């Protein structure tokens, strides 16, 4: 039922799905509408100037042509005219800059937020940490590989869907603290008119207050490497009651996950689970078949790490390798996932080491 409702809402809230869309989305916040109005204002100013200038030009092209017997006149300057067409555009621009500055001031007013969420860009996923709740998760593209490589039909939210959407309450001022872990990313939701670069070493601020619940979709907008085109942003805006319920659910889920980590798994269970983790977290660089990309991303098949000492193998996954694209996965993957993917890499993709590791042995 709630799934159906979400789906219905998502259809309602994304008129952008209509093809041949030619203009900006008006958006769903007071600020996004203000920005849309500025956009339309400057657009119409350009149209009016364009019609006037091109009008004169095309009139001349039509009338003052040699084939119609036009004879060139000799004047080639006129101070009055030149002063007029310097001063008038200046006045228009100043008139334009005033409302633009007012809107900017609104955008920069991040004070008195009800909810604070830290957003961290990773190659190629987003991490959302709710600073007032103990909620922390990653959001990955969930479009199946088969759709991307044209082996199956593309669903309507192709490339704009994730495994875990960011969830925020409606009618609350939500402040985003945006940063990055590796390279620069940029977090954009067109319907909120929020776009802010996620920069390592910096924390940028933005805010949003959405009136209507719904699902809003955007993308990373700063080139961040190979899968820049494959790190969407999905925000689910819930009514206050639904949001409170969601927060409670997240906490319950976290407790359940903690219990999982102390369980014993069989090798087959780990390999089966590890394959899913590998495809989601590793295959982007190391490739689905483990062959890597020569010169850019090393192969897993036959690699010294994946076939060497298991502790070193776990360490590079947990802590990453500084100065390379290999990130630390300790925050992103649970102990169960890490144990599974280590076991998978050592016993699949052409490797046959034969050993395994239990989640309880993963030191994060």
């Amino acid at each position, binding site marked *: 039922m709630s799934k159906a409702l979400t789906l219905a809402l998502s259809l309602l809230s994304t008129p952008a799905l209509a093809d041949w869309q030619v203009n900006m989305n008006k958006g769903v916040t007071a600020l996004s509408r203000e920005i849309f109005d500025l*956009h339309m204002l400057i657009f119409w100013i350009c149209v009016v100037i364009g019609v006037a200038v091109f009008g004169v030009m095309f009139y001349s092209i039509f009338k003052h042509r040699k084939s119609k017997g036009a004879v*060139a006149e000799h004047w080639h*300057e006129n101070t009055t005219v030149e002063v007029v067409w310097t001063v008038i555009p200046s006045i228009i*621009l100043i008139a334009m800059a005033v409302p633009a500055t007012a809107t900017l001031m609104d955008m920069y007013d991040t004070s008195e937020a009800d909810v604070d969420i830290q957003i961290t860009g990773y190659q190629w996923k987003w991490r959302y940490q709710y600073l007032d709740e103990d909620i922390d998760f990653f959001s990955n593209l969930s479009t199946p590989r088969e759709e*991307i490589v*044209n082996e199956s039909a593309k669903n309507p939210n192709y490339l704009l869907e994730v495994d875990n959407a960011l969830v925020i309450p409606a009618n609350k001022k939500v402040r985003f603290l945006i940063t990055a872990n590796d390279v620069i990313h940029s977090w954009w939701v067109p319907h909120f008119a929020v776009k802010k670069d996620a920069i*390592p070493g910096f924390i940028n601020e933005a805010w949003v207050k959405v009136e209507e619940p719904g699902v809003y979709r955007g993308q990373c907008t700063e080139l961040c*490497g190979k899968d820049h085109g494959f790190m969407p942003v999905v925000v689910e805006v819930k009514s206050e009651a639904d949001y409170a319920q969601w927060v409670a659910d997240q906490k319950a889920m976290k407790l359940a996950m903690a219990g999982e980590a102390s369980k014993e798994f069989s090798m087959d269970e780990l390999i089966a689970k590890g394959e899913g983790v590998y495809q989601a977290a590793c295959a982007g660089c190391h490739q689905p078949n483990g062959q890597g990309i*020569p010169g850019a991303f090393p192969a897993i098949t036959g690699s010294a790490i994946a076939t060497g000492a298991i502790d070193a193998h776990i360490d590079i996954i947990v802590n990453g390798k500084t100065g390379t694209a290999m990130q630390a996965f300790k925050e992103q993957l649970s102990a169960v996932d890490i144990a599974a993917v280590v076991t998978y890499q050592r016993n699949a993709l052409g490797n046959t080491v034969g050993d395994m590791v239990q989640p309880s042995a993963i030191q994060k």
Partner: protein
Amino acid sequence: MATVDVDLPHVKDEDPHHHGPAKGLGRWLYTTNHKDIGSMYLIFSLTMFMIGGIMALIIRAELFQPGLQLVEPNFFNQMTTMHGLIMVFGAVMPAFVGLANWMIPMQIGAPDMALPRMNNWSFWILPFAFLILLSSLFMPGGAPNFGWTFYAPLSTTYAPESVTFFIFGVHIMGASSIMGAINIIATILNMRAPGMTLMKMPLFVWTWLITAFLLIAVMPVLAGVVTMMLMDIHFGTSFFNAAGGGDPVLFQHVFWFFGHPEVYIMILPAFGIISEIIPTFARKRLFGYSSMVYAVASIALLSFVVWAHHMFTVGMPLVGEVFFMFATMLIAVPTGVKVFNWTATMFRGSMTFETPMLFAIAFVVLFTIGGFSGLMLAIAPADFQYHDTYFVVAHFHYVLVPGAIFSIMAATYYWLPKWTGHQLNETMGKLHFWLSFVGVNVTFFPMHFVGLAGMPRRIPDYALQFADFNSMASVGAFIFGFSQLVFIYNVIQNVRAGEKATAQVWEGAQGLEWTVPSPAPYHTFSTPPKVD
């Protein structure tokens, strides 16, 4: 014309006994003749235009439909990066330098460039710079894949190994540009014919003089920023590495301090060309000559204080946003003056529409559309919605393709009869124009729409709602790309044969270059002409 040796104190003929070009390959390797060097720059730039164009077509072919069809994302990123670098540094800039080499001495009545040997050197290092850059495509890890703006740390810590070759290539290109610029300034300031005061110079000369100062001011900044990258990559410094106390945003500030004037380096000479062509075919003097000069100078000055409008979303303080918004909007004023002046030049003229004029009019109209989207981008709050989307791609392609590139084509058609001695084949020229005009608009206009609808730039695959306009843009790109074969045919055909051109070539043409025979002799103005 003047083929007699005259002893002039300020004109030094490098070989008084030898007036024709040397024979064979040596002519091109050792030449110090501005016309030979100009031709080499132009041929080089056309070659690069074709290579960069093939890359653009690979990009557009991949984007024809949603899904990954032809190339992997990593190779797609290499294509966008190399396409940008090659078009900016390999096609547009050398084309303008080539035109400057050919035309500036002839327009100011000088026998050659002021520093002919340096001229040879500044050309001949260019092919090597681009061989180095292009060879990175075949290196392990592939070519640079971090965008032509090469933002750190994607271009440092996370870059493919070929980045070092990219840095080396950029250094060589920079050295070439600086030498070219010094040469142009030295030529214009010292070698004008008697009587040609600064305010009598043709506008192409004026715009190039200002452009050359921009080049000298900002190419060292580019060299600085790539050297800082080199240090970060190989010598353990942390200019741009946050983990070492560095600042990734500093990279962007330094890059755009170079990058914004660079944008004007690619458009000011175009303004000059258009200001030559429109009066010729309107048979009426350029309206507001001095305001044109002042407008170009103010655009050049303003270009140093607007760089951060490329960075509205990096989290600058509010005052920074407001300052860069105001400064950027100011640029619209002198730019508007130029467009109004061109329109006033046409008004009550006696116009004909030969190929150069068609390109020039298309330039004015389409460049103005690019200017309008630029004005929209200047509105900082709205820029948060436009930034890094296809709207930006549409904007800068409108100012660079039907802007800079159309002006180069207009200039080529305009001066080609002077270079080769053959009249243009107008039918073929017009065919090239109309194919290009349609192609360019079908390619780039829909990009405004997908950008506003929310499509980010530099992505190899996209959501379904962007599919229709993207396939349209791809069709346009192939029309535009293949119609350039007509351009190459036209140029080659004109070099080989054609109706004999007069010295005047175009009925309404004014200026010293039209007083020498067509084709222009190997040495012109060995005796300076007198300008009243």
